[in-house]
């Protein structure tokens, strides 16, 4: 299934101008800083921005073209809004039925089960917590039997623990309902936990697209994600659990990596996110350091940031995997770093995503 876009829409600060073909499968993250035009692009896809010009084509059917605009209610696009937009005059069950009635969906019980909505059905919308509201909103959208599910930062208004509780529900959606998802977020963490592919938007333009690991590892994305959050995603395999020191031993591109012990199965494949600011570089394998994780690799790219003290170095650690290091420009010169040179990446901290990599 594909969604072809070639649209333009004037916005207060810039013109949103995006041409892209989404290969829809699983969850595609639409990623970028606040105000990059992510939500607006989502609204264009949904048919909520009638002033947008250009073409929108979904699965071979033209939704928007010259002199043609299929209204939002005929597109069968589910939209989960950041502010949920539950109907305040209806209780939870009636909100769900509102959608089910119009789509003639028979999955009411399914949806209630997958999202654990049964205890909420008789409640009034105003009595729900933020996380509960968002679950009901997702359920309501699913009951409209959408062919494409658009989610606009559904977790943005929630605190950390609620976010953590809701993430597993969202990651299950494409498999449980067979609906591709476009997920808007400015959080790298959500991208790495949920998405299979990503599209990066910056100031109304598509900056980069591709698989999550590749795209996050590419240097030009730093601008879109904000330097502080920029990093890389690597695939890792659980090889041992160290019961004495409570460490989980991982293998990344044939190299060893350990992190504080976690309840993961031996042999499980995981995705790790390593932030660029948590990576230091050395030209020889260092000794006498408290940092345990040292990955050998080769420099692929060095990008010095104009007018800052910093440079971003992309390091190939083998098996087509990469990490990024954010070091000072002075260090680049002092260590004499050049492209192609062998280096050791010192990883201070790793965060990881419990979800196994999709089998491909």
């Amino acid at each position: 299934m594909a969604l072809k876009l070639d649209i333009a829409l004037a916005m207060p600060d810039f013109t949103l101008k995006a041409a892209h073909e989404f290969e829809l499968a699983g969850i595609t993250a639409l990623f970028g800083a606040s105000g990059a035009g992510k939500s607006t692009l989502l609204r264009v896809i949904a048919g909520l921005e009638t002033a947008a010009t250009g073409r929108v084509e979904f699965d071979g059917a033209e939704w928007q073209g010259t002199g043609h605009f299929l209204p939002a209610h005929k597109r069968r696009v589910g939209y989960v809004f950041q502010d949920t937009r539950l109907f305040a005059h209806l209780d939870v069950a009636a909100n769900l039925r509102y959608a089910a009635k119009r789509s003639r969906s028979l999955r009411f019980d399914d949806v209630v089960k997958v999202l654990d909505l049964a205890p909420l059905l008789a409640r009034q919308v105003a009595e729900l917590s933020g996380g509960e509201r968002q679950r009901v909103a997702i359920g309501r959208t699913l009951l409209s039997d959408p062919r494409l599910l658009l989610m606009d930062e559904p977790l943005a208004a929630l605190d950390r623990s609620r976010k953590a509780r809701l993430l597993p529900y969202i990651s299950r959606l494409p498999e449980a309902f067979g609906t591709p998802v476009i997920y808007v977020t400015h959080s790298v963490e959500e991208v790495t936990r949920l998405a299979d592919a990503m599209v990066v938007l910056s100031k109304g333009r598509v900056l980069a697209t591709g698989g999550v690991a590749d795209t996050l590892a590419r240097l030009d994305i730093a601008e879109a994600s904000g330097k502080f959050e920029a990093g890389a995603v690597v695939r890792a395999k659980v090889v041992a659990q160290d019961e004495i020191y409570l460490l989980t031993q991982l293998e990344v591109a044939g190299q060893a990596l350990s992190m504080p012990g976690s309840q993961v199965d031996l042999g499980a494949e995981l995705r790790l996110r390593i932030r660029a600011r948590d990576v230091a570089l050395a030209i020889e394998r260092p000794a006498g350091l408290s940092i345990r994780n040292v990955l050998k690799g080769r420099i692929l790219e060095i990008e010095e940031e104009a007018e800052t003290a910093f440079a971003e170095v992309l390091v190939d650690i083998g098996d087509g995997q990469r990490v990024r290091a954010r070091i000072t420009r002075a260090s680049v010169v002092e260590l004499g770093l050049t492209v192609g040179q062998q280096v050791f990446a010192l990883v201070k901290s790793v965060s990881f995503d419990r979800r196994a990599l999709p089998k491909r």
Partner: protein
Amino acid sequence: MIWPDLSPLWLSIQLAAVTTVLLLIVGTPLAWWLATTQRRARPFVEAITALPLVLPPTVLGFYLLIFLNPNSTLGGLWRDATGTGLTFSFSGLVLASALYSLPFMVQPLQAGFEAVGRGPMEAAASLRASRLDAFFTVAVPLSKRGFLTGIVLSFAHTIGEFGVVLMVGGNIPGQTRVISIAIYEQVETLDYAQAHALSAILLVFSFVVLLAVFTINRRMPVRVG
């Protein structure tokens, strides 16, 4: 005490009821348009809608007399179609009252629709509800306070109108002799007993209606958010 002739009261209630229904039909789309349009014509239409609030009833009545009389285009068409005139008739009174009470219906409705905003309507569209469907199942229930206020104010304002009726309707028993006109005539003819009775009825009626509105409004919380 002599029991007063109540027919002017019934006529007033009939007039107010018909006017309110007419205003609901005409005022709802107008209020929706005003609440949602981006067009530059909006302030002009808003100003025209609000005119009856500032114009003296005699001015409105005077123009209506000119536009509705059988020699005018509109009055002539009406006469050809129905065989009766629009001036000094119940139909003419309904038309005049509707114009006179228009802001009392449109303004609360517009405020109600604006409070609903685009959010719930967009949500409804994303759930495959057509615009009309979304209007009746989302916008209307969410602005029920606006409807209640609009209906009651239009009704009460029509009951209480005097100047426009006097100009357009005159004082024909059973046709245009509404309660305010009847009281005016009774006072003019020094029939204070009848005037007392009708005035008291109107006072109590108005108070009860308003009390009911405020009570219902309290008990009908509109949850938004």
